[in-house]
């Protein structure tokens, strides 16, 4: 299948169809744990949404439902107007190719190098070898892993594994990008780099959902925030105070300033150290 037709698959939809729509979605796991309870929400094309909430509130459940990894017990989930519960098994791979996911537990293929893990995402959509050879090193350079191309996942640090997972989700430019705790194992400087990358991707028109605990990042990014608590939707607020036209460089600079982190590693080291040296 040629690379172009994928994007069209969703783009063909009417402009005003939300990319993601939950209608009274309920998911109760075997054993009675509540994953989600009557959650309704809509995410429009090109939006940047944070999904927050305490641990165990149902963020990853949302992600798994969107991937059709699990099915909802009640309610409807629509992706670009397609009902997931009635979607035939055969169409699921196509859905998943259109949704890039950074998994909370990375889900890397243990028998493949960093390079091959990322390349796999392109191979499943039938990308040509040349295009893979061009794109993969690019994205790995972006997440700062160009020196670890030929390492296997068990030869990487936690943060490096997380960045491989991020690269894999980004590499085929899916129209919907979901990141489950994408910076949980990253230091602040790298986190900002990753958020900058996600922001840039969002600015190219990709819809982005980020589930996170990084309260500070959420506050500073000033984007729409959806808060869950014990499976229920508690809050759905649009920050509204950011200029839509902020460039990625401006964005990163503002974040760095607001989080008090220097723009290069060395400065950051000193800045980071300071609060402990002088009270």
């Amino acid at each position: 299948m040629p690379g172009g037709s994928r994007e069209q698959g969703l783009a063909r939809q009417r402009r005003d169809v939300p990319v993601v729509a939950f209608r009274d979605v309920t998911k109760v796991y075997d054993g009675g744990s509540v994953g989600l309870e009557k959650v309704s929400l809509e995410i429009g094309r090109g939006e940047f949404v944070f999904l927050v909430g305490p641990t165990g509130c149902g963020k990853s459940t949302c992600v798994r439902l969107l991937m059709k990894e699990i099915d909802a017990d009640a309610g409807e989930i629509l992706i670009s107007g397609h009902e997931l519960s009635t979607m035939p098994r055969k169409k699921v791979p196509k859905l998943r190719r259109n949704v890039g996911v950074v998994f909370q537990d990375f889900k890397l293929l243990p028998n493949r190098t960093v390079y091959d893990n990322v390349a796999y995402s392109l191979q499943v959509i039938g990308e040509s070898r040349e295009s893979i050879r061009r794109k993969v090193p690019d994205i790995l350079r972006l997440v700062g892993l160009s020196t670890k191309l030929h390492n296997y996942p068990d030869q990487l640090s936690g943060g490096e594994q997380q960045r491989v997972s991020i690269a894999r989700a980004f590499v085929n430019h899916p129209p919907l990008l979901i990141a489950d705790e994408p910076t949980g194992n990253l230091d602040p400087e790298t986190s900002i780099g990753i958020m900058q990358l996600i922001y840039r991707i969002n600015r190219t028109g990709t819809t982005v959902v980020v589930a996170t605990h990084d309260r500070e990042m959420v506050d500073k990014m000033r984007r729409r925030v959806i808060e869950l608590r014990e499976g229920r939707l508690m809050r759905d607020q649009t920050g509204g105070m950011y200029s839509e036209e902020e460039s990625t460089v401006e964005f990163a600079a503002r974040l760095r300033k607001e989080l008090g982190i220097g723009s290069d590693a060395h400065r950051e080291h000193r800045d980071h150290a300071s609060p402990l040296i002088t009270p």
Partner: protein
Amino acid sequence: MRIGFFLREAFRALSRSAAPSLAAMLTILITALVLGVFIPVVQATTGTANEVRSRVVVDVYVKDGASDADKAALRARIEQLPNVGSLQYISKDQALAQMKKKNAQAFALLGSNPLPDSFRITPRDPGGVNAIADSLRTNPPAALDDVRNRRRDTDRILSATGLVKLVTAGLAALFLIASIALVANTIRLSIFARRREVEVMRLVGATNWFIRWPFVIEGMLVGLMGGTLAVLLLLIGKETFVDPLAHRFALLAAPSTISFTLLAVLLLVACVAVSAIGSGVTLRRFLRV
């Protein structure tokens, strides 16, 4: 391009997750080796049993001094019978010559020839030998003096060879089924060890066949390697043990067995097929994510 990709994937799996593939290969190697030894043995045994069965005969003694017309009638009657394979006329002189050869001493001093002329019937199906004798005994032709089918000996031969054939056929069936089950079982386990990988592939958007092909190709490679090794070992065994022994046991009529080439090809095809199909089928269970 796709096939190249699948092949590369299969080789990657072979070299990276070596332990499960190796285990599958070992199982294929062992079962192919056992089958490769067992198949010729079964054939030789069955062949020998059949050869022994073909020695079962019915002797029809002709009345002393029967007319040529009566003899011809007897012959015609015998030839009419169903299940008559071959018919041989043994004159009393021939019979005596045979006897003398078998037991010179006993017949050395004999003045006259006490033996009658006879017909020797070799039945087409040895199992029906008693029926031939019985049918001649009821309403006997004029020239017929006696029918001898050595019922006790015949029954024992038929019984023994029948048992041998039954047991070898049973063993062969059991081994074949057991081999397939063992190989399938090991392949199942070797894919089970990599089920997480398959689940992740599904989550990244791979279609079932995109995941399956490399596994099937890997299965074929594993089957091919296991089978080839087995054939090589069989060849070595044949050259070092069987061929010298065959010389030693040259006195025996060697029943014809499958040619080594055919056996090798059969084993290889079976190994590759079972391993590939096993891989493809087993995966189904882990592709339901």
